[in-house]
């Protein structure tokens, strides 16, 4: 009878833990939602004032279109059951067998929706200031409907059919699934759209300063805040072991971000002779992206080193992409999300307590992490290239020169973001 009683108690605990988990996931999702505001502010702050309204529109629409499309189609593609093409694509979009998914696991849908919107929004920053709004809308819709959900389906349903899951790939909250995917799409988009007018003159990279560092900094604080939900929520549970797990993840997240900012500060200070504000802000984001994959697999020291490495690499990468590759990425999205997303995934191969090279785990995990992350980058790059190439050949990717020079706000949206503001920018 007591046994029965204990069983009943265990069942009750399980139910309650389920509810507590749902509460945490919901709150975490709300935090991740807020990251949209963070991305918007960082992008606004790091670009010129004549395009601020356009950036607002792109981000609001990433979220809005993404919310509708992911609910309608994407979720089914991501979590559907039967797989075709070697596990590449889930054929039956949902267990219920109809296209428009009507999940009752609302908190999971909510959490995944805001993740999806994040992936879309990464691209926005890299092509700010010259991209046609209508074209962007279409690309963003395809990314949230197909490109990201297919990427997600390889790992996150955590079932036998998810090939990267079976392979032992580790990407706790999506350094690769979300950030490297977004970053790779951003890379392809930035190349295809081409640099802003005046960015490269006589083969030399010119500075186009962002117009508001305060917005940039507030954006970074909001992103850092949201990341506690992004990573911590990816525990997908609360209670018992999961409590320790989720908060440990949060500590790792905070340490990596802090170390990323410090590393970027001192590295750029030594390199350029000035304590560079925008690089320090990017350093914090680099640490956050880098720890996203491993926050559940490494200890605090691992987080510290991942933050350190990402904070340094992001500075060099931004410089390299800008000056050498001559790809114009106003906010550093390719370096922050793409490069550090890849790096963070691979570094698990070294720092994972269970299976990492530095902890005697051999090279196997390192190998899985590497090809897994590359698979994501390849998929996102190829898919984005196809979509954007078609768009380029049809409706076009770029606004006219006149529109770009006078500002997207005026021409795409018929207004200025700061109409009382006399700006000293040149065009």
């Amino acid at each position: 009878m007591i046994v029965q009683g204990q069983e009943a108690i265990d069942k009750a605990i399980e139910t309650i833990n389920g509810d507590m988990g749902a509460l945490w996931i919901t709150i975490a999702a709300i935090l991740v939602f807020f990251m949209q505001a963070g991305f918007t502010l960082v992008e606004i702050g790091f670009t010129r004032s004549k395009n601020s309204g356009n950036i607002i529109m792109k981000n609001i629409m990433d979220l809005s279109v993404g919310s509708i499309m992911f609910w309608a189609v994407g979720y089914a593609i991501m979590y559907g059951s039967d797989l075709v093409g070697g596990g590449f694509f889930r054929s039956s979009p949902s267990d219920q067998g109809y296209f428009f998914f009507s999940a009752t696991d609302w908190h999971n849908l909510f959490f995944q929706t805001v993740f999806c919107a994040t992936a879309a929004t990464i691209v926005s920053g890299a092509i700010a200031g010259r991209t046609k709004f209508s074209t962007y809308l279409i690309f963003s819709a395809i990314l949230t409907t197909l490109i990201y959900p297919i990427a997600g389906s390889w790992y996150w349903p955590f079932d036998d059919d998810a090939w990267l899951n079976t392979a032992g790939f580790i990407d706790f909250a999506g350094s690769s699934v979300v950030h490297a995917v977004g970053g790779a799409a951003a890379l392809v988009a930035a190349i295809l759209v081409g640099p802003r007018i005046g960015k490269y003159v006589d083969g030399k990279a010119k500075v186009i300063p962002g117009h508001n560092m305060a917005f940039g900094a507030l954006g970074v604080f909001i992103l850092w805040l949201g990341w506690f939900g992004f990573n911590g929520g990816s525990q997908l549970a609360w209670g018992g072991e999961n409590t320790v797990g989720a908060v440990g993840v949060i500590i790792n997240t905070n340490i990596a971000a802090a170390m990323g900012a410090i590393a970027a500060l001192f590295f750029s200070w030594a390199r350029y002779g000035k304590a560079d504000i925008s690089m320090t802000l990017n350093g914090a984001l680099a640490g956050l992206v880098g720890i996203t994959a491993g926050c559940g697999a490494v200890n605090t020291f691992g987080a510290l080193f991942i933050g350190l490495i990402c904070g340094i690499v992001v500075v060099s990468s931004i410089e390299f992409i800008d000056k050498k590759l001559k790809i114009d990425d106003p906010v550093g999205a390719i370096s922050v999300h793409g490069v550090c997303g890849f790096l963070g995934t691979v570094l698990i191969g070294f720092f994972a307590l269970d299976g990492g090279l530095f902890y005697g785990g051999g090279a196997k995990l390192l190998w899985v992490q590497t090809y897994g992350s590359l698979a994501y980058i390849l998929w996102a790059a190829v898919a984005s290239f196809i979509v954007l190439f078609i768009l380029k050949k049809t409706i076009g990717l770029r606004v006219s020169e006149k529109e770009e020079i006078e500002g997207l706000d005026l021409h795409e949206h018929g207004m200025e973001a700061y109409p009382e503001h006399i700006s000293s920018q040149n065009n």
Partner: protein
Amino acid sequence: MKKVEAIIRKSKFDEVKKALHQIEVNFFSYWDVTGVGNEKQGHVYRGISYSTSDIQRRYLVIVVSDDFLERTINVLLDTASTGNVGDGKIFVSDMIEAYRIRTKESGSAGIN
């Protein structure tokens, strides 16, 4: 000594500046103004479409010695132009004296 005031499109400023440097006019001051003229710009805000002739322009003040005047004007006329309504104006007036604050030099030494 002449004072050249040019009201140009903001989008033409970089070109103009480069061209001025090429003819060795390396000294001027500029700021942003609103210009009222022939050009109109369409706006929409919360359901009201309107067109305004108040358009942001850049105002340049260049004080030059008389022998620099012509080429300065020519460079401005050439590089600031797009051929569309709204390219702006150049005004020339007389300047009696110029001083360089640093050295208290005056005359043409004061200009640049």
